[in-house]
């Protein structure tokens, strides 16, 4: 017994040693690397480098890069000069251009299929004819668009492109109109702004449930003349964003005979019904592609990658825009990988295995030490670190923005703990709390945009001044907006007429609200924390309880109008102010409809929105959108937070990148691989 217990003591000591050594080896491993590693530089940088990353790294980067994190910068070689590999973090939902509505699918579709028009390189408001021979003839009433189709273009299967194919593509899209899909964008100019879907509106309401008749109506909206080589669109009313929506992937041109051969719709209205609203996998073009574009579809390994191969007989002989590419693409193959785990993406980027990789906002500091060249938006590139081996494009304004929403009439059916007690008693809010404009203004004055932008976006975001974002028609940098002003916030709170049951003011009673964001979204969580901090400083009785919900629950509560205060983002569908004011302000908009603006105001907003979208004169449109923005400001309808900026990371051997915010962004900025080339 004695012997055994001694032994046990011995092995107790050993066991503790094992643990200790485990810890030491862990620490030791890191001691070998100087602490000024990837992030050391950026985070320890003095607070004065407000713009953060680029400034801080100029000095810190050399230390980081030499600290042995990679085999050394110079060793990265391009081991696949004829292929361009992009590592993003999204899986395509479908390769059918009519069906797809996500950026991962759209990116692929844009390389394979083509539209009547295309953007003029990086310009978002200028178009060039693509499958159309020239820009369309628009009738004087703004309702008829006539396109002449370019001759001699072949699909990848060798068949010629005909005007019928063009018209068919639009018909097919509108009739397919899958639920939750993009085709409402095409339906609205032809069938009315209130149209939500083909089946629900065109078939049910406009054609008394006669499917074939509705199908014929669709066919009348886009007509073709094979002899004259033209396609004509007949709009219901003038539509300002018409050209914008024609460059979207949902307006891609497919081949009618080929789709028919894939067991798709043959263009006959009597058979159309079974091709409406398919599930992704039931759709004949789900994993098949046949376009006219510079790349041909090769394979899709679900969860892994999509491979494209060069179209050697690509039709572009004269550049679409000045100095643009011609002939077959310069790079033979394009591989778009779906790499969800950041670590793996980063490893591949460092090894030179991928040419372009998505780097999420929160990880930019990890990559900074390896940057050789930094190209700020609309400025020249500068070499930031001679030992680096990557190029980064920074501060490119994105086409998405976020906002904190106020619900003016919270749904309390069956009880709702989002508003606490449901009364003004310090432990909750009345359901119509946010119907008080003073309170909405006070919240706006209480948000600290500077901290939000600096800490969450590393300074790479700008304050959203209203529904219309920077870069879109009607954006005004001088737009009146709110900024942090606790004194004004306090005044507004004091000005509120709200009284508690025993007659005390809002200021004396205080309130408690739940602020809700969707699970896993740390930016939105922080937005709430910033608001919470600053409100509690204004008056300790103002309490915000930050809550998170998994996406399904969030979605349900938001659509049911049960959330009082919540954060959501919006990514535009097409680059036009209409796509921004509609969701935020229109009675049919995703966000506005769950916010319950006062009837009279809502009426005014709706009138203005319709007027603005039907106006074809640009200056008049700008005025109208200015008016809408001012109304938003005066009524403090939402708390507009930020419009983020994107970065694009690539190996030094990638050439030809330019930023067009409308290209479907999959790994940062959107890419048109046809314009890219490789080589030092």
């Amino acid at each position: 017994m004695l012997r055994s217990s001694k032994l046990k003591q011995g092995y107790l000591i050993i066991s503790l040693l094992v643990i200790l050594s485990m810890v030491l080896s862990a620490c030791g491993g890191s001691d070998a690397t100087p602490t000024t590693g990837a992030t050391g530089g950026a985070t320890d940088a003095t607070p004065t480098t407000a713009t953060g990353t680029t400034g801080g790294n100029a000095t810190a980067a050399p230390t980081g890069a030499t600290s042995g994190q990679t085999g050394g910068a110079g060793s990265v070689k391009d081991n696949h000069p004829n292929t361009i590999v992009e590592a993003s973090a999204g899986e395509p939902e479908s390769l059918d251009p009519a069906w797809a509505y996500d950026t991962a699918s759209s990116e692929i579709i844009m390389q394979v299929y083509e539209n009547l028009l295309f953007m003029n390189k990086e310009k978002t408001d200028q178009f060039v004819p693509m499958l159309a021979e020239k820009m369309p003839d628009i009738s004087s009433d703004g309702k008829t668009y006539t396109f002449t189709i370019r001759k001699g273009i072949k699909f990848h299967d060798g068949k010629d492109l005909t005007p019928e194919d063009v018209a068919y593509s639009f018909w097919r899209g509108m009739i397919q109109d899958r639920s939750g899909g993009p085709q409402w964008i095409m339906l609205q100019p032809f069938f009315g702004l209130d149209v939500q879907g083909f089946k629900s509106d065109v078939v049910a309401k406009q054609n008394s449930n006669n499917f074939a008749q509705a199908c014929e109506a669709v066919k009348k909206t886009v007509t073709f003349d094979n002899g004259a080589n033209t396609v004509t669109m007949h709009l219901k009313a003038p539509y300002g964003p018409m050209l914008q929506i024609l460059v979207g992937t949902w307006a891609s041109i497919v081949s009618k005979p080929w789709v028919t051969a894939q067991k798709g719709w043959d263009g006959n209205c009597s058979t159309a019904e079974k091709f409406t609203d398919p599930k992704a996998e039931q759709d004949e073009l789900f994993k098949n592609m046949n376009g006219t574009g510079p790349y041909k579809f090769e394979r899709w390994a679900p969860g892994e990658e999509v491979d494209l191969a060069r179209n050697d007989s690509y039709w572009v002989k004269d550049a679409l825009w000045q100095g643009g590419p011609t002939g077959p693409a310069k790079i033979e193959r394009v591989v778009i990988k779906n790499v969800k785990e950041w670590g793996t993406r980063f490893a591949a980027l460092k090894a030179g295995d991928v040419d372009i990789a998505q780097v999420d906002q929160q990880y930019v500091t990890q990559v900074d030490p390896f940057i050789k060249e930094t190209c700020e938006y609309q400025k020249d590139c500068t070499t930031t670190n001679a030992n680096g081996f990557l190029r980064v494009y920074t501060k490119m304004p994105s086409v998405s923005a976020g906002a904190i929403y106020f619900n003016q009439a919270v749904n309390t059916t069956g009880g709702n703990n989002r508003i606490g007690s449901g009364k003004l008693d310090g432990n909750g809010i009345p359901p119509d709390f946010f119907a008080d404009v003073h309170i909405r203004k006070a919240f706006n004055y209480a948000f600290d945009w500077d901290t939000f932008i600096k800490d969450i976006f590393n300074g790479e975001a700008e304050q959203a001044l209203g529904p219309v974002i920077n870069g879109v028609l009607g954006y005004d940098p001088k737009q009146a907006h709110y900024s942090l002003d606790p004194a004004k916030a306090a005044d507004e709170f004091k000005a509120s007429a709200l009284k508690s049951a025993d007659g005390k003011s809002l200021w004396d009673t205080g309130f408690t609200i739940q602020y809700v964001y969707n699970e896993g979204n740390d930016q939105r969580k922080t937005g709430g924390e910033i608001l919470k901090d600053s409100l509690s400083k204004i008056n300790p009785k103002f309490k915000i309880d930050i809550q998170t919900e998994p996406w399904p629950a969030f979605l349900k509560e938001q659509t049911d109008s049960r959330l009082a205060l919540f954060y959501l983002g919006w990514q535009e569908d097409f680059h036009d102010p209409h796509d921004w004011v509609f969701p935020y302000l229109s009675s049919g908009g995703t966000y506005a409809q769950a916010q319950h603006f006062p009837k009279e105001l809502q009426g005014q907003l709706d009138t203005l929105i319709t007027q603005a979208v039907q106006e074809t004169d640009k200056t008049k449109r700008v005025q109208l959108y200015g008016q809408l923005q001012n109304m938003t400001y005066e009524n403090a309808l939402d708390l507009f937070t930020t419009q983020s900026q994107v970065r694009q990371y690539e190996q030094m051997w990638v050439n030809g990148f330019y930023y067009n915010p409308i290209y479907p962004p999959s790994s940062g900025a959107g890419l048109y691989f046809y314009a890219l080339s490789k080589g030092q």
Partner: protein
Amino acid sequence: MTSFIIRRLLVMPVTLLGLSLLIFSMLQLLDPVQRASLYISSPPKTADALQAVIHTYGLDKPVWEQYANWLGNLAKGDLGWSKTGQQPVLSAIGNYFPATLELALWSFIPIITVGVWLGVKAAVNHDRPLDQVTRIFSIVGYAIPTFVFGLLMLMIFYATLQWFPPGRLSDWANRVVYSPGYHTITGMNTIDALLNLRLDIFWDAVLHILMPALTIAYVNWALILRVVRSSMLDVLRAEYTTVARAKGLKESAVINRHARPNAMIPVVTIGGLFFAGLLNGAVISETVFNFHGVGWWATNAATNLDAVSVLGVTLFSGALLILANLVVDILYGFLDPRIRLA
């Protein structure tokens, strides 16, 4: 024996059916809007899009009807469509299972060889230093969760030393694997590479699989060491061993000829359970190392509420578990004459 096997095989579909019912009833805790969120990754752009999606995917139908539909398709050999895998559930299992199996094989070899060897050594050297060291090893190992061990591995061997990367293959190797001249036969990269006579691919696959395999191995050594050691100790104390010693056999002969074979019986259980619990282990280790196998996909599917995929994977692994248990029982019957299956 045969009747035993048949009976067990007959019970299997009943259990699996019960399992599918269990999962189905679990999913009923969510209302249709919440289940539709799988198909709607951002706020719907139009007002009735949400309802339309619910209708399209039949989420508003009565439970029994949804279940009957699913069963009807199952009868046709169709496990449904995996939204998270963007392919039919069966093909997703076919694509991801080889990776998991490969990982299992690579970790199984060190687990069994080293585990058994050390376990026997420890028992023979009962209470001597070797025994103590292995025992500490197994106690500490038993206390380290897979994800902590995995992260430590990544920290040391990937982030610091840059020896082993995460994932399944480097991108250059992927290019080769996906190229026309390369034949994918088993879906297991290391084996396929050898069959294609591509040593470079083999080496790349090995570099990728070592860390996750070692993680699984380390965590399992703890268990197998303990089992082998104690069962070896039991055997060494057993009467027939004493008799063998009394006969004057050398100790090494006693151990090799009498003790070890008998001590291996529990190892069969462990081995069987290891393969049965494959998916369980894969969930965490495949996620940590971004190793795209069934566990990785299943986690992805479950967190995204992809009901159809979860049902498919669960039935698959349930069947695997039941079969593995059956095999273990049968092996037992052969190995241990005291056990009679009836």
